[in-house]
């Protein structure tokens, strides 16, 4: 396997300096834990003349708990996140999602920001240079045609991060730092359904932190299906957050990963508010999930399996939370 291409490594001490360096070097990339970027660079999937290391930026490593809001710096590692007392007690979906990423050794390095900005994945893209060359490449890199959908003008590579769906279900916002200062976005607006441009992040912008409410009365969970019990990316992943109102649904939120080019917040579930959780309600949820996701042949595991398994997993989690939330 190839060594890394030549690059300069810059190590800014502040987020503002990181953004300035990113603006000054157009062919640059940020590196956080490096567990996505470095393997991708070694496979020739990503190139950079300058790599900007976020490791030395203390302000991005903080977890702050103010009032009813939790703010987590983008440079916080997934191991730290999964062991945080507030996260474990109040936001179980987030702890479970962080623990579901890769293997334990990855999680000691891997960060929240890197997970949210993860490169989209496809069986025709995440391959060695030789493999991709033998298959005449594809549109996402160096080729003209999408191998998954040859007539398509867009790439369907799947967003496969585990943490984003949990944060979508928990109602998180992102803080983005650019040359003009900080802007805030609901996490859903941070993503675009396009395998080649999946982030609404400008070329000189940095994901600074994620904030989320610590609301009372909610229960939440995250689970994924994968080929092996450890290390593997999700074939499909589902996060559910539920607020139960006695014997009826107060609010139900479902978000999925691995089944579109962005983590998918399932729309339309507000129609279930005020209804009991019965077979009809679960069938409605299933209908909205099937409408919301679009798995494509980006993994070796088939599209029909991922299409059917996603609502089955979601309904299982909703039932479990319903019992927990009573």
């Amino acid at each position, binding site marked *: *396997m190839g060594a890394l291409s030549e*690059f300069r*490594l810059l190590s800014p001490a502040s987020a503002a300096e990181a953004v300035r360096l990113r603006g000054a070097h157009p062919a640059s990339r940020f590196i956080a834990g*490096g567990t996505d970027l470095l393997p991708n660079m070694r496979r020739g999937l990503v190139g950079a003349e300058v790599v900007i290391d976020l490791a030395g930026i203390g302000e991005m490593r903080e977890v702050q708990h103010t009032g009813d809001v939790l703010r987590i710096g983008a440079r916080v590692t997934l191991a730290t996140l999964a062991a945080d007392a507030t996260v474990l007690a109040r936001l179980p979906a987030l702890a479970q999602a962080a623990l579901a990423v890769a*293997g*334990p*050794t990855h999680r000691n390095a891997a960060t929240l920001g890197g997970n949210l900005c993860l490169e989209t994945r496809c069986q025709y893209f995440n391959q060695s240079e030789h493999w991709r060359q033998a298959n005449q490449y594809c549109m996402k890199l160096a080729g003209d045609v999408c191998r998954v959908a040859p007539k398509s003008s867009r790439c369907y590579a799947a967003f496969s991060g585990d943490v984003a769906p949990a944060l979508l279900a928990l109602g998180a916002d992102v803080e983005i730092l650019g040359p003009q200062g900080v802007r805030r976005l609901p996490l859903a607006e941070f993503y675009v359904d396009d395998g080649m441009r999946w982030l609404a992040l400008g070329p000189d912008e940095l994901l600074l932190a994620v904030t989320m409410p610590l609301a009372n009365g909610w229960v939440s969970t995250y689970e994924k299906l994968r080929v092996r019990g450890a*290390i593997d990316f999700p074939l499909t992943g589902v996060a559910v957050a539920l607020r139960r109102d006695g014997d009826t649904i107060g609010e139900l939120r479902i978000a999925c990963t691995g089944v579109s080019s962005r983590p998918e917040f399932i729309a339309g579930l507000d129609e279930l508010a005020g209804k009991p959780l019965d077979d009809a309600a679960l069938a409605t949820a299933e209908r909205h999930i099937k409408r919301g996701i679009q798995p494509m042949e980006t993994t070796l595991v088939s599209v029909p399996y991922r299409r059917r398994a996603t609502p089955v997993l979601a309904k299982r989690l909703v039932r479990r939370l319903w019992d927990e939330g009573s």
Partner: protein
Amino acid sequence: MKTLLRLSVNGRLREDAVAENALLLDYLRDTLGLTGTKQGCDGGECGACTVLVDGQPRLACSTLAHSVAGRRIETIEGLSTEGNLSRLQRAFHEHLGSQCGFCTPGMIMAAEALLRRNPQPSRDEIRAALAGNLCRCTGYVKIVESVEAAAACDEVSA
């Protein structure tokens, strides 16, 4: 471009001129000749390159050498003292936790971090801590038994 890297490797402070794009794995193997740390895959998949950074297991193949400047690195070579195997090394040897041996340095470093944190782990805790380390030979049972055997021996490792 090479710049100066200062860090500690197996207890010795070092200062080396290291390329900015060098992986920790290449620095350990090629610059320092510490070839106990293995490269088993093309990046992040197998755990054979596991070393400890400030006591925590990290993948040397997915870590830039300069990103661990000032930190404490431990490799498999640092475990034995004066020619005596550590308790984990001995347990892997005696309980057949190692066959071809390629995964063994990574397994032992991940297990070493576990035993320092949790001296009496359950079988499930051992399996969880080694979940990122692949072995193509043993079927894992003997590896888990080796870690249990090391935990059972009172002696504190070097």
